[in-house]
């Protein structure tokens, strides 16, 4: 139907190597992007500020992480710490008088350097042991942030972000903050889509699939893994800075705790490892599902549908959320991206569903 393939012939390499080969996909992407850009005019500030904006930023963070986890196959349970490094460095840099644009870059580099140290563990172990090592580093970074008043901002451990402008655009209104975040998410997305087609991207995939084999064909596992951690931490650090400046605007250590790392991993896994659309869907799910469940159940309770105690009522979203994560892993281990893909494939050959796409 929509995804009609007939009439699209890829007669040259140029056409065959396009990011979105099927016109319907191109239109879809363009429409979604246009809607995203126009979002401040389309949705109320309530929805923009509490759903769309955090969703975009967390999607950027999930994309940064999926570069590492999905593409390079390196597990990371301390990504919130990387984002914390980015957030704190950007604020301190801006306060020290560095222009915001440069502070963003520098905070990304600082996060990348420290994040590459995280990666040092990956040079020796993988799988469960890498999970544990990155987990330990998350605790170390948390500890440093909490225990060094100079970093965390003194007695109340709260740092407010200074007023900044980005490329002469004042970043204070909700719309401008949203556009900056959107620009960053779009940039990461384009980067991610293209990195898959570079030699760097291919070597990451080679390392993920089998590092011995990769070494045999001349991919240096040491260098590639370190580069994977470096790149992903750079993106994560900038995402952390964006999160601080565009969304929270007051940074506390709890915003980057261990549970946030778990949420990020959940975003990547529920969305589908290594998938772009999955990162967006996964971030949306992990971020918004508890919120919607809370509101839904509170609404049902108000109308007398769930006659249970307030205590159970407030725990119910947590139960459903946990059950949904388990459900996804059990029944669709490839995540929301796979579900999206199934739907797309269905329409690709609709109404001839026995045909192969």
């Amino acid at each position: 139907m929509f995804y009609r393939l007939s009439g699209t012939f890829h007669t040259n390499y140029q056409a065959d190597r396009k990011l979105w080969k099927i016109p319907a996909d191109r239109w879809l992407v363009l429409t979604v992007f246009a809607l995203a850009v126009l979002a401040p005019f389309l949705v109320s500030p309530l929805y923009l500020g509490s759903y769309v904006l955090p969703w975009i930023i967390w999607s950027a963070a999930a994309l940064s992480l999926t570069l590492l986890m999905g593409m390079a196959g390196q597990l990371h349970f301390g990504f919130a710490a990387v984002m914390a490094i980015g957030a704190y460095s950007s604020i301190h840099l801006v306060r020290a008088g560095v222009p915001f644009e440069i502070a963003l870059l520098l905070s990304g580099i600082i996060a990348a350097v420290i994040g590459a140290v995280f990666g040092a563990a990956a040079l020796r172990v993988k799988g469960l042991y890498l999970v544990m090592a990155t987990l330990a580093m998350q605790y170390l970074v948390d500890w440093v942030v909490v225990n060094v008043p100079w970093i965390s901002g003194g007695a109340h451990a709260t740092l407010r972000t200074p007023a900044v402008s980005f490329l002469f655009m004042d970043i204070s209104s909700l719309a401008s903050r949203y556009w900056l975040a959107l620009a960053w998410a779009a940039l990461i997305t384009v980067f991610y889509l293209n990195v898959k087609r570079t030699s760097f991207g291919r070597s990451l995939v080679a390392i993920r699939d089998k590092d011995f084999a990769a070494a045999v064909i001349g991919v240096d596992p040491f260098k590639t893994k370190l580069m994977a951690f470096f790149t992903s931490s750079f993106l994560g650090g900038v995402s952390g800075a964006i999160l601080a400046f565009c969304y929270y605007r007051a940074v506390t250590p709890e915003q980057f705790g261990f549970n946030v790392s778990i949420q990020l991993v959940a975003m990547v896994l529920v969305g589908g490892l290594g998938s772009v659309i999955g990162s967006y869907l996964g971030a949306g799910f992990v971020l918004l599902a508890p919120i919607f469940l809370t509101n839904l159940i509170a609404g049902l309770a108000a109308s007398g549908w769930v006659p249970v105690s307030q205590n159970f009522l407030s725990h119910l979203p947590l139960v459903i959320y946990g059950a949904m994560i388990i459900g996804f892993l059990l029944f669709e281990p490839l995540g929301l991206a796979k579900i999206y893909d199934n739907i797309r494939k269905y329409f690709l050959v609709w109404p001839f569903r026995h045909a192969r796409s």
Partner: protein
Amino acid sequence: MAYFVELLINGALTGLMYSLVALGFVLIYKSAGVPNLAQGAVVMVAGYAVWLFLSWGLPVWLSIPAAMVTMFLFGLVVERLLLRRMVGQPVIMVVMLTLGLEILLRGLVPGILGSAPKSIDVGIGFAPVIIGDVFINRTSLVGGIVALLLVGASLLFFRTRLGTKLRAVSDDHISSWAVGISVERAIGISWGLAGIAAVVAGALWGSSQGVDWTLSMLLFPAIAVVILGGVDSIPGVVVGGLVVGILGSVIPGYLDSIVGGSTRDVVTSLIILLTIMVRPFGIFGREDIERI
């Protein structure tokens, strides 16, 4: 000197109490190869179970066995319903599944039974054991002894007929099938045993801090214990527990007042990191993990 000895002994005993949490983790990992990051939450459930039976008026000596039966069944059910379907999936999926389970349990159990801390009294006295100028925490002392007994019991258990089967399963799933051992049953039983270990941990930790969801945070020190001792080694749990406990008590005992912050989590994190960098399979773990 007495200060050092006191830190040493209390640290060692606390470490043994971490071993109780770690034991459940190792039992499951050994047979099923599943890193159960929900073990902290299982301890929490076990604590709630003990509290529930006590609140029904059962005496302690009956409540704890009753909780053990409950948690054994709980372990069986979790394995059957969730983990069995994950066989063959990459480790990250299993890790995330157990984390999802943790979220679920942390919502379900305090949601139904109440989230304010519950008190349980298992009849351990209050006064410290005093030797010279050294005060030893009685709860930790009981906990340490119980931990040693429990680890000893599990070592003996692995010499029984059923235990031998479990060892065979932990060696090789395929060969166990070939000689007629039901791998599924063995893995199920090891989940049940982990539930029993969790009851002991939940009762002891619950009696010292009260039962609420924070019991699940015992997972972090327990992870340090298993990494150091070796994820598939039962004696490693004791040795790992002792080291983690002692270092986590002696170093903060001298450093905290200088640093002005609690260094225990730093010590725990560094133990995990150093072990992984130097000897990833831990002190007693099997050396067959894939090195790079």
